[in-house]
């Protein structure tokens, strides 16, 4: 069984995002795991994060201002894998830093570092050749995004070649802004699950344990990002404590859906 399959097998999973190089990333990642994160998304900073809201934009620029390089991100990933052999690790970012040395190079580095999956915001299924074949060749999952604008006609193309889980972006917009209505999430998840066997995780605008619990009742996973990144911004090097506490509150809410299901 893959790490992804394990993480989603127990019931709804909590997926936690922070930006690599923003603060003491290794300690922050450990705090997320200690708090009960089931899957980790590690953001690769980019100068032009055009799908992100202010919180993650600023985290990208803070990370780059501290001199974070692609090599540092793979070092963080490699060390994370040594400390946490069973927690799935996903790299999330933009096409240019992922493809600049060639997709094969990137896929190879992911495989060597123990990265389980990759989310690339600006490579839709139409441009799959840019990264998808290289990742699949190395056994790294390509995790695609589905959105409220992904209609039934497009969905098969989005699912084709994707694995690990499907990330449902619940609002047409950027990260960290408003949350979608619960009704629309339920409807969308039902539609996605009818079309696919892979787990469906829902994100964008999720901040409170209550929101997370409501989503966990209908989806296989809940993704939280901007809220973590804001804690890192606020607490700097002393972020691990608050991160762990916040993760624990979300994890309890998400995992309680397992028992009540």
């Amino acid at each position, binding site marked *: 069984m893959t790490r992804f399959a394990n993480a989603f097998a127990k019931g709804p999973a909590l997926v936690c995002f922070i930006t690599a190089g923003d603060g003491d990333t290794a300690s922050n990642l450990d705090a997320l795991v200690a708090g009960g994160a089931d899957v980790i998304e590690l953001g690769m900073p980019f100068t032009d994060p055009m799908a992100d809201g202010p919180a993650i934009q600023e985290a990208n620029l803070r990370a780059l201002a501290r001199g974070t390089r692609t090599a540092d991100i793979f070092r963080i990933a490699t060390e994370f894998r040594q400390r946490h052999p069973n927690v799935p690790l996903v790299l999330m970012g933009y096409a240019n*830093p992922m493809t600049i040395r060639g997709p094969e190079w990137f896929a190879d580095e992911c495989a060597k570092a123990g990265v389980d999956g990759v989310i690339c915001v600006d490579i839709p299924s139409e441009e799959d050749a840019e990264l998808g074949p290289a990742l699949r060749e190395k056994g790294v999952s390509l995790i695609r995004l589905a959105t409220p604008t*992904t209609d039934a006609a497009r969905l098969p193309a989005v699912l084709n070649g994707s694995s690990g889980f499907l990330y449902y972006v619940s609002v047409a*917009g950027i990260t960290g802004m408003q949350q979608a209505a619960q009704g629309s999430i339920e409807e969308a998840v039902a539609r996605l699950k009818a079309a696919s066997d892979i787990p469906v995780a829902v994100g964008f605008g999720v901040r409170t344990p209550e929101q997370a619990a409501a989503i966990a009742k209908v989806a296989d996973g809940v993704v939280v990002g901007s809220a973590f990144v804001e804690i890192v911004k606020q607490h700097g090097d002393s972020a691990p404590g608050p991160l762990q506490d916040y993760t624990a509150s979300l994890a309890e809410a998400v995992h309680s859906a397992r028992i009540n299901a």
Partner: protein
Amino acid sequence: MTVQSPNSLRSYPDESGHFGQFGGRYVAETLMPLILDLEKEYRAARQDPAFQAQFDDLLKTFVGRPSPLYPAPRVTEHFRKLAPKGKGPKIYFKREDLNHTGAHKINNCIGQILLAMRMGKTKIIAETGAGQHGVATATVAARFGLPCTIFMGAKDVERQKPNVFRMKLLGAEVMPVTSGAETLKDAMNEALRHWVANVHDTFYIIGTAAGPHPYPELVRDFQSVIGTETRAQMLEAEGRLPDMLVAAVGGGSNAIGMFHPFLDDPEVAMVGIEAGGHGVDTDKHAASLTGGKPGILHGNKTYLLQDEDGQITEAHSISAGLDYPGLGPEHSWLHEAGRVRYVPITDSEALEAFQLCCALEGIIPALESAHALAALPQLTAEMDEDKLLVVNVSGRGDKDIFTVAEALGVEL
């Protein structure tokens, strides 16, 4: 996609929106359905005689087309004197500076707003650097009564106050963008962020022949009126095609509009002028072809200024319209195919050409166009005097007089 003919350079992009390895549709999934929709609607519009007729009529009655092809006698004489004996071609200017709003930008804005209305979109957004595309967009939005929001880097808002006021007079809302370096690249990021959250009712009028497919194609097609007119005007004036076309390349829409109708005429040479800033051997320039390498940004694959990790680096040019770290994908492809030669020109060379054009022809060119004019010393020295050379004077320089005065140390 135009009809594919294997021997034609004019038949690109291919069905998937690529020019060779360049172009494409590198956007977030939320935008993909809209981009596909736009492509479909654009194909239908191209086939619709009523769309074309409305576009042509507005170019004539609102923009003031055709723009003249002007034989520039004193500039021709000037460079003939400097050139070796028997060299120094006859120089023509394509006068896009005489268009309504003072530049070629309006051609594209007319075409895109007609598409927006055809698609039932009720709100218009655009990005702008110096404000020229913002003014052109605000102009067409006012003409058709659609609300319009212009994203502009906060630094540019400060630097380009007259254009900010123009946009406001035209009824547009100007949103200062405070992320990143607060210039054109950041304005484009912010416009994309706004668009992704408002795809249902909002049309994004991109200002240059770049961005996700089909933008590079449709912007080029709308701007091709420049080259199509030049061709007819030159045939009428001289009875033959020009020997060389010269145009400045920022995003590259005035250049591709001028070049595209001539791509299959091998006897017509083409030179694109990049902004060399302080020099392409410094870190302060905007010459993406000379100093960059292929990468993915803002929806397309093209040459970009970037570091080895693929982080985008800041561009610099004295001309705000050329101050962008990439360029349209068709230029990247024409560069690699060897069909168009791309040459960098520095800030100071452009400043010199700016003054020369004012003094010799009574025309104040935009700093963008001054880059094209600045290539004349080297280009004319190589060409026989019976040859014909056309410079695309893409815009007028009234907007640039403050920048030029400052660069020359003149207090206004």
